[in-house]
C-alpha cells in the first residue's frame, strides 16, 4: 500500500524540489514545524496586487512533506491570495494524487499551513 504513495511524481519532487530556497528579501514568510516527525517548512512569498508573483520554500522533512511543499509552490505561483486561502486538505491530496493515512496526512499539510500563515502576514 505504501509503495503507492511513493509514486514517481512524489519521488521526483522529493529528489528535485521546485522553488527550493529563499527569496532575496520578503516580509511575507512563515515557518511551520511538525515536531513529532521533524518536518519543518518555511514558505516565502513575493506578493504583487494580491497575487503570488514568486515563491520559495526551504526546510526539511520526509518525502511526503517535501514533495507536497514543492508541488504547492508550483501550484501557487500566479494564483490570487483569495484562491490560496481557500485551499484545503483535499486540495493538497489532489495535488499529490495519493491517499494518506491520518499519520502521514500531517506531513502533507505542513506546507499548506506555512503558505496560509505567510499569506496572513500580508495586510
Amino acid at each position, binding site marked *: 500500500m*505504501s509503495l503507492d504513495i*511513493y509514486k514517481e511524481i512524489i519521488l521526483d519532487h522529493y529528489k528535485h524540489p521546485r522553488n527550493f530556497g529563499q527569496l532575496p528579501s520578503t516580509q511575507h514568510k512563515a515557518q511551520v514545524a511538525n*515536531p513529532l516527525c*521533524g*518536518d519543518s517548512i518555511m514558505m516565502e512569498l513575493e506578493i504583487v496586487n494580491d497575487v503570488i508573483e514568486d515563491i520559495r520554500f526551504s526546510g526539511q522533512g520526509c*518525502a*511526503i512533506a517535501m514533495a507536497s511543499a514543492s508541488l504547492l509552490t508550483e501550484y501557487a505561483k500566479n494564483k490570487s491570495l483569495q484562491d490560496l486561502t481557500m485551499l484545503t486538505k483535499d486540495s493538497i491530496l489532489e495535488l499529490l494524487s495519493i491517499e494518506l493515512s491520518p499519520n*502521514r496526512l500531517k506531513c502533507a499539510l505542513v506546507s499548506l499551513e506555512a503558505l496560509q500563515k505567510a499569506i496572513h502576514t500580508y495586510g
Partner: protein
Amino acid sequence: MFSINELRKDFPVLSNHPDLVYFDSTATSLKPQVVIDAMSHYYTHLGANIHRGIYDLSESATEAFEETRDVVADFLNASREEIIFTRGTTESLNMVAYAMGEDIVGEGDEVVTTLMEHHANFVTWQQLAIRKKATFKVVPVDENGDLDIDHIKNIIGPRTKIFACTYVSNVMGIINPIKEIVKAVRAINPLTIIVIDAAQAVPHIKVDVQDIDCDFLAFSAHKMCGPTGVGVLFGKKSQLSLMRPFMFGGDMILNVAVDGSTFQEPPYKFEAGTPHISGIIALKESIKYLQHITFQEIEKHEQMLSDLLVNGLKEKLGEKIMIMGEHSKFPRVAVASLVVQGTHPHDLADILNDDQMCVRAGHHCAMPLHTFFKVPASTRASLYFYNTEDEVARFIDSFVKAVKIFS
C-alpha cells in the same frame, strides 16, 4: 541453550501473523501465552478485589497479587517492603518527583539528569526544578553517545538533591556503567537521591539494586513480556520511610477521621486505590518466563542478532548509514537507531511496513539526544530474544531497498 523456534510458539501475536517481523520491542515487547493466561485466570477464577475481603476468593486474589511482590523483590535483590506497584515507569518516576522531590528540592538546589534520557526521566526533573526554582543540570554525552563519568564529577555538587539516570539508552541501547556512575555521585555527595530508569534494562540484563546501590529504580512490566499498565518503583527502605504518600484514597490508610488520617506503612501507603490486579498477578509470570530462559541466554542471542544487523547494514550501505551509539565503549542491547542521509525515517518505516516489518520512526521520546546528534529523527529497530537471524536478513534487504527508493 534454548530453541527460538520453540519459544516463538509461546507468543500468539507471532503465530497470528506468521510473516510479521516485530522489531519494536523497545516500545513494547510481545507477550507469551502464560502471561495472557495469568491475566485471564484472575478474571475467570478469582474476580474479587484484594486486601480486606474476609472471604476465600478475595484472600486468594490477595495472595496471588502479593506473590508478585515477592517475585519482583527477588528479581531485583530487594525486600518486599521496597516494591511499590504503579502504572508504569513514567508514574514511578513522577511519584519520586512529587512524593520526595517536592519536599527535598528547594530554591538554588540542583536536579541533575543526562542527555540520553527518555522524556519521562528528563521532563519530570526539568519541571520539578522549574517548580522549585532549582537549577536543572544535564550530564552531556560524548560524540559516541557515551556518558562521560568525569563530567558527572564536575556536575554533581553539595546542592545536588537528585540525580536521575537511565540504565540502558532506549535509542542507542548503550548499557551505562551504572554502578560506577552511582559510586562517582556518592563519592561527591552521599546525600544525593539517585534514581535509575531501568525500563530498558530489565528486559535484557540482570538488575541488582543492592549492587547498584541506587535509592530508587523504576521499570514497566510491558517491556519485559508483561502486561501494559503495570510498573514498579523500587525504593530503599530508608528512603521510603521518609517519603510522604502522594496519592490518597482507599487501601493506603490506617485510620480516617474528620480531623485527620493516618497511613499504612510502605509500600502500601503508596498504593492508593484498586490496582491493576490481573496485570500485577501476570507480571510474576513474565519474570519467571525470562528467568527460565536466563539472562545469559538472552544476552548471548541478542548480541549475535545485533552483530548480524549492524554488520549487514554496514556492508550494504557503508558510510551512508549512521547507527546512533555504535561506537560506544560500553556493551549494547539489540537496539539500532538508524540514520541515512537523504532519507527520512517516516518514509523508510512506511516502506518497511509494506514488507510487514514493525519499526519505530521518530525521536523515540528522546529529543535532546537527537538534537545533540543533529538529526530530527531516526528509524529504530529494537530486537528481543524471540527474533531470528532470518528476520534480520529480511530486514536488511527491505531496509536497503527502502533506502534505494529515496536516493
